[in-house]
């Protein structure tokens, strides 16, 4: 059972944001940029002091900020680490974020952390484990969280449901919402060939999507024993590709005007490149809004 949630102030006017990364911090401290909101990786701000958190607090004065976690290991068989959650709670109290999110993945077992987003088999045992941890996290934080659909490079034998079903059941069981990562849908679908992006979107319950992520990916060759295959890797080091923009358009059509974020984590370009990607998303949202008005 999840705790009663206090929904934080929604993002108004401009619902397009970008991921705030260290090379751009000074640009945001120097002057106001044309962007609706920002998202940070919360684990980068768990220090007890220092310039990082000081700068974030300053930037928060001008922008709504969302906290995106990578280290709670929600899908672990092991119970969630309360010490880690305490750090998140402190940060939430400092920043007052619009959203708090983490991933449908795991990264810790037997108290050893792998600090990565490892894949879960989609079966009832995984569902029970992640639901318990999501419940624990929401109860501890006394707020709803969003969970992000992962990028995956493997699927497992004997899975009992597909990813969209898994998400529908998880959100229903716990009252959490979905952070829909459109690039991850494209990457996982291409790598695992076990669903089609548009059917996936159709299958998801409409009311669960609260935030959308867009990002770029890269390609890598693997050997299957007979021939080479190309896998897509969720590197966040590129512009959003055409196919992902197309899936995004369908997502917006299905789920409505959802706050959308451009992520870029490696080979980070000048801020203007991210802002230009944000403009592309904004145009799609505006076009969709006009159609529906």
């Amino acid at each position, binding site marked *: 059972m999840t705790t009663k949630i206090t929904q934080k102030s929604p993002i108004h006017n401009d619902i397009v944001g970008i991921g705030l990364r260290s090379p751009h911090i000074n640009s945001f401290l120097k002057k106001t940029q044309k962007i609706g909101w920002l998202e940070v990786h919360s*684990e980068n701000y768990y220090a007890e*002091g220092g310039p990082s958190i000081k700068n974030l607090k300053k930037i928060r004065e001008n922008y709504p900020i969302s906290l995106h976690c990578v280290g709670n290991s929600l899908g672990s068989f092991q119970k969630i680490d309360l010490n880690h959650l305490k750090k998140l709670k402190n940060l939430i109290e400092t920043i007052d974020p619009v959203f708090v999110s983490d991933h449908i993945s795991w990264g810790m077992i037997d108290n050893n952390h792998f600090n990565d987003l*490892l894949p879960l088999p989609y079966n009832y*045992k995984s569902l029970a484990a992640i639901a318990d941890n999501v419940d624990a996290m929401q109860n501890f934080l006394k707020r709803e969280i969003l969970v992000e659909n992962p990028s995956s490079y493997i699927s497992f034998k004997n899975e009992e449901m597909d990813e969209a079903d898994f998400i529908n059941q998880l959100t229903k069981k716990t009252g959490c919402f979905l952070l829909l990562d459109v690039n991850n849908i494209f990457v996982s679908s291409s790598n695992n060939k076990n669903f089609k992006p548009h059917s996936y979107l159709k299958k998801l319950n409409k009311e669960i999507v609260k935030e959308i992520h867009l990002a770029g990916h890269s390609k890598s060759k693997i*050997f299957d024993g007979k021939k080479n295959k190309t896998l897509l890797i969720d590197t966040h080091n590129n512009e959003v590709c055409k196919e992902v923009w197309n899936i995004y358009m369908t997502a917006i059509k299905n789920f409505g005007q959802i706050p959308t974020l451009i992520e870029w984590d490696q080979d980070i370009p000048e801020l203007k490149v991210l802002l230009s990607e944000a403009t592309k998303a904004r145009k799609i949202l505006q076009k969709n809004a006009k159609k529906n008005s």
Partner: protein
Amino acid sequence: MPKKIAEQNLLYLQREFTKHLIDRDEKDILKFLPYSKEESISRLNIYRNNVNGNFESVLSSTFEAVKTVVGEQCFKFLTTKYIKNYHSKSGNLDLYGEEFPILIRDNLAKHKLDYLEDLAKLEFLYHKSYFSKDAKNIFDLEKFKNLKPEKFYNLTFTIHPSCYFFSSNFSIYSIWKNNTKNKQKIVSGKKEKEFLLIDRSLDIPKITKLSHNQYLFLSLIAKKKKLYETYEAIYKKTNQDFDIGSFLNLFISSAILVDFTIN
């Protein structure tokens, strides 16, 4: 464990998955995957590369000078060994690498690079200082100046929480200074006792060379020793008189001492 139950068990799957990430010869995870052996291994390599890449990148940025001194290849050997033997204990990586100096000591002792363990320790303290607590400097200078002389003896002080003290038998400061910020000049580990203060009292972490007496003074003050106890302990140790007033001036003006208590 019977095969069917084992295969349905999430704990078992997650253990086997991580065993394979740590050691590619551990292959029980493959039975959970619907691919050929080669393809399963290739796909799992993506996760291994991500995990190792993250850890390597943290170690590289924390131990920049060590990396410059030993070179890319040796550093890669050390990080690979570290990742395999010292697991991360937190969902964030602020303190990842704490045991790296131990690994260096255990692996490079025979290479006559004795100073490397100290260099790694120093770099970790610098890193730790960056992440340490903030403190307001509430040192009331007027009140301090107007204290009656007899009150001084029993004063204790609060040191900025980002301060760490470090001593080495090597000229570790110049080695550090010459091997960070992309400088390539390698200095040999000359035997020369050094005393250092690492702090972030003015926001940016810095390392300062201290005299032996200054080092003793700050170390004792940090342990909440009273001013007279500090003076006596240093005098006993060094058998030298020294100007405690100049130490106070220096460390108050540089915001190392952020408060005092009259006992």
